[in-house]
């Protein structure tokens, strides 16, 4: 059975302006169907305002469907009694690490989730220890989050979710506020958690190079799913991606440019190695 199921999901909200006439109904998500298998690593791509963040919040029960439904391990997010169980199974990591760290000491922050779940003291300590170990931040367990770098803070935020031992983690642009070094650390961590602990990952992003880590890409546009496939499938459609206002990885872009000039390169090129390999066959 799929771990996540999004069925005919529609989300509308009303913006209120200065007067009655300014009231507008906005459709953030427009009839989406997704089903995610356990252990998958999915990247959700899309421009700002394409509905990708709203989708992420539905899976965690932070937003409720206007129409349709979302199921996490078969539990309907609309049923309030399921919420705690859903949130424990599908944790969410947000963009700004400062705004999601509750504790003033690293280990106390990581404990926040398990404390809310009402776990016994010893189990909390076990989970905090192994979560901090998992993200490689054990050395900082007694530090104040304010003294950490952006990348380190984001790893603490991930540890806070890991401590609830979820089966699925949703990451809402987790690297948008980080520098290249912080980004690399967070991404390799996400990748490792997916590979080694078999945690299902759903990562919202607009960095093309990050997307290559995923097994599957869902491209969103105006609240709808515009594309759904492997990185190779998605990035071979350079024209379509450009129309959606998105980029493709540098190698795919250059290969596309060369194809336009008549160089017979295959459409599946996404990495530098692949591009070099094919070009070298011409000499």
């Amino acid at each position, binding site marked *: 059975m799929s771990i996540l199921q999004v069925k005919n999901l529609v989300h509308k909200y009303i913006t209120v302006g200065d007067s009655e006439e300014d009231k507008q109904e906005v459709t953030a998500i427009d009839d989406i169907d997704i089903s995610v298998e356990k252990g998958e690593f999915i990247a959700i791509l899309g*421009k*700002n*305002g394409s509905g990708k963040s709203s989708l992420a919040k539905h899976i965690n029960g932070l937003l409720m469907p206007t129409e349709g439904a979302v199921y996490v391990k078969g539990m309907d997010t609309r049923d309030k009694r399921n919420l705690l169980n859903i949130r424990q199974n599908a944790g969410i990591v947000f963009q700004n690490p400062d705004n999601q760290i509750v504790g003033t000491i690293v280990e106390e922050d990581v404990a926040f989730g398990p404390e809310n779940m009402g776990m016994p003291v010893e189990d909390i300590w076990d989970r905090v220890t192994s979560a901090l170990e998992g993200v490689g931040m054990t050395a900082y367990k007694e530090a104040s989050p304010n003294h950490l*770098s*952006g990348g380190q803070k984001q790893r603490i935020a991930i540890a806070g979710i890991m401590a609830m031992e979820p089966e699925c983690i949703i990451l809402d*642009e987790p690297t*948008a*506020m980080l*520098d*290249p*070094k*912080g980004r690399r650390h967070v991404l390799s961590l996400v990748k490792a958690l997916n590979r080694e602990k078999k945690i299902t990952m759903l990562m919202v992003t*607009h960095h*093309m190079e990050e997307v290559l880590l995923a097994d599957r890409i869902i491209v969103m546009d105006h609240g709808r799913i515009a594309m759904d496939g492997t990185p190779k499938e998605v990035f071979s459609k350079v024209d379509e991606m450009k129309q959606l*206002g*998105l*980029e493709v990885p*540098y*190698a795919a*872009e*250059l290969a596309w*440019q*060369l194809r336009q*000039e008549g*160089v017979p390169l295959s459409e599946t090129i996404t990495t*530098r*190695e692949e*591009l*070099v390999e094919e*070009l*070298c066959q*011409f*000499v």
Partner: protein
Amino acid sequence: MSIRLEHVDYIYEDNSNQKNYALKDVNLEINPGEFIGIAGHTGSGKSTLIQHFNGLMQPTNGNVYFDGKNIYENDFDLRGLRGKVGICFQYPEHQLFEVTILDDVCFGPMNFGKTREEAEIIAKKALLDVGMSEEMLQKSPFELSGGQKRRVAIAGILAMEPEYFILDEPTAGLDPVGRGQILNLLKRLHETKKMTIIFVSHSMEDVASYVQRMIVMNHGEVLFDGDKREVFSHQKELEEVGLSVPFYRYLAEDLNQRGFTVSKDILTMEEAKEAILKVLRKKR
């Protein structure tokens, strides 16, 4: 005519009263009409450096000169300097405060002595320059998307009509469309208005495509300062301090290693494309 830093140190004390150098013996000269990129990892002193250009931060040791005058002499008009050297910081949320977008952009020019009427004309032009449409001008800046806020913030500095325009990571967190809009705007300002542009960026590809001169900071010191091609030729040193060279330079290196001979000095996609096509045409 220039901004000149001479032996600038900026020292701060941390909680344990230890002295730290945010800048250490920095010597730089920024000349009018340049297009400069500043790179360096977090904590390398980039932000501290740009705040010395308009006197927002005062050096612990050393001097800053604007057009040959020491900006910390008593009779120097420091506030006036800030009109000539405009800095746009990374987070537009830190500067937007007015009820309408137009009012907000008028704030800068009016602080520098423009009347409301004059300011409105300049502000409208600046907003159109950054790609905001006429009907947006009366909207609240708080209703905008992240990319739009960034553009309004840039217009807010642009409307001060600075001679030097400095931007701290102007494209961070934007989607590709928003990023392209801002970088192309900078290019246009540099080409048509002869404005001096300095921008801080983490993206080596962006720096390589747009700037002429590149300054690399590391641990508060200037590691490299010069023509971008010259700076990017120090691949090993850049990697050692946690930076990289543009994707296309790595590609050129890989190609050369495999006997596909192209110039090693390739920085942008256009250059890569031309070089590869040239080799392929010769083969045919």
